[in-house]
């Protein structure tokens, strides 16, 4: 491998993977005590936090692990964009990465719902409302889709069954492409994979240690059981940018904002194909990338400081 691969910016994807491993382990343990029945879900989370030995810490590790994974995957995306590593022959690698990002957001969303507290209940109500806006395509988000079971149980099924299956498939594709195409550098391959794994594993273990401390000193809160038909909370922080668009556009913003963002990410390899020898990246792509980043961070920040608003029925 190229020695460059052992630098932290090039290890962000690998660190995301190690973060996902932590989420799988803590998730499997938490799921032994979780009850996906609508009337029992919140109680089971209370039980995990208050009665299961180390349950509060496992839940905190899962929460902070999810947050860190979203940060590292976002930084990984920014680095790949900055390096223009999406150009031929790496378009499929970029697209699989975009799908993985989308999948991680889906994990974060379904995980929020599973808590069964007010924030989770409102998230689920938003999913139902969004599904209604999407018409037949949004039918799976409707409680009517499978009358024999609850929507919460189906969200749990997605979180622990369907989404992990997709994740494994996409991660396998992403890794296979990395192995096949190598990392994007002209440097000679003078380092070994064992050396890379040593650096990556060491950094991941330091990250685990930091997460263990963070989980111990700042366990995440749990809200009161959800009261349906009411909106008094804000979403989990990675969704605050969508919340900002909802504040200004209403419920449509919840559909339009992710479509625009993920659509824009998907077309990046199609609009920037110019070789370095031919003058490098067009300036407008740089400007669009920077504007996009600023808009994303700005809306995230605004969502955090804006007063709470109700959107359902807007």
């Amino acid at each position, binding site marked *: 491998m190229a020695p460059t691969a052992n630098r932290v910016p090039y290890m962000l994807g690998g660190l995301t993977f190690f973060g996902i491993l932590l989420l799988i382990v803590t998730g499997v343990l938490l799921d032994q005590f979780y009850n996906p*029945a*609508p009337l029992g879900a919140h109680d089971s989370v209370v039980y995990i936090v208050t*009665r299961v030995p180390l349950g509060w*810490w496992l839940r905190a590790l899962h929460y902070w692990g999810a947050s860190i994974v979203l940060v590292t995957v976002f930084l990984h995306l920014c680095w790949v964009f900055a390096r223009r590593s999406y150009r031929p022959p790496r378009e499929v690698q970029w697209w699989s990465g975009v799908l993985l990002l989308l999948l991680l957001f889906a994990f974060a969303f379904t995980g929020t719902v599973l808590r069964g507290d007010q924030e989770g209940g409102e998230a689920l109500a938003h999913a139902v409302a969004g599904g209604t806006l999407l018409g037949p395509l949004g039918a799976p988000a409707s409680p009517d889709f499978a009358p024999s079971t609850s929507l919460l149980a189906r969200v749990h099924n997605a979180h622990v069954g369907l989404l992990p299956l997709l994740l494994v498939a996409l991660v396998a594709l992403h890794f296979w492409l990395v192995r096949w195409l190598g990392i994007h550098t002209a440097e000679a391959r003078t380092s070994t994979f064992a050396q890379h794994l040593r650096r990556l594993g*060491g950094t991941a273990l330091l990250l685990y240690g930091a997460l263990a401390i963070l989980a111990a000193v700042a366990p995440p809160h749990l809200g*009161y059981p959800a009261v349906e*038909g009411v909106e008094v909370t804000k979403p989990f922080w990675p969704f605050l940018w969508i919340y900002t668009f909802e504040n200004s556009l209403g419920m449509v913003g919840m559909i339009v904002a992710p479509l625009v963002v993920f659509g824009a990410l998907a077309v990046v390899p199609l609009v920037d194909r110019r070789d370095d020898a031919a003058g490098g990246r067009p300036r407008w792509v740089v400007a669009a990338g920077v504007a996009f980043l600023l808009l994303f961070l700005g809306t995230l920040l605004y969502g955090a400081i804006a007063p709470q608003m109700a959107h359902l029925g807007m």
Partner: protein
Amino acid sequence: MTRRWLAALLLVALAAAPAIAHEHGRIYLGASQAAPGDSLALRGEKLSKATTFRVVLRGPLASYPLGEVTTDRAGAFQSTLRLPAEARAGAYTVVLLAPDGDVSARADLALTAAEPPAGAPAAGAPAAVAAEHAAHAPAVAAPHATAQPMALPVHAGPGEWAVIALVTLACLGAGARLLRPARR
């Protein structure tokens, strides 16, 4: 190519269609607001004739079976059903399910009145959870929505802290060791 995409889209739409198909009947509730445990008058028309429907009270988080009704030869019915006492306040939909499970009609219902305190554990929940809720539930009887976190006590004994310290130190130690430059 375009035809293939259109055909695929059509297939997806057809697969999702059952969720919105069948809905040709009408149901009317005796009241648009009610309290858990109340009786609810229900009247339906333009439904399949001489058919038994299941009536379900449905919210995003929880659904409750209310009972069954059978239509007459004109496709109408009239009935009174009892709302579940354990349902939490909020916006619900009363849905009429055909024998094949499809929704045949629906009407909105708001559950508004007092009920068990917010946070009351479900029937069958461990006694320890019930005690936890009783100790930390808000001091109001009626349910209310709040963004405030629950004040849950975390009983971490010395053994648990020892495990956390051990895991943390092991991760940091092993990580530092792996990152140490290899000896030549």
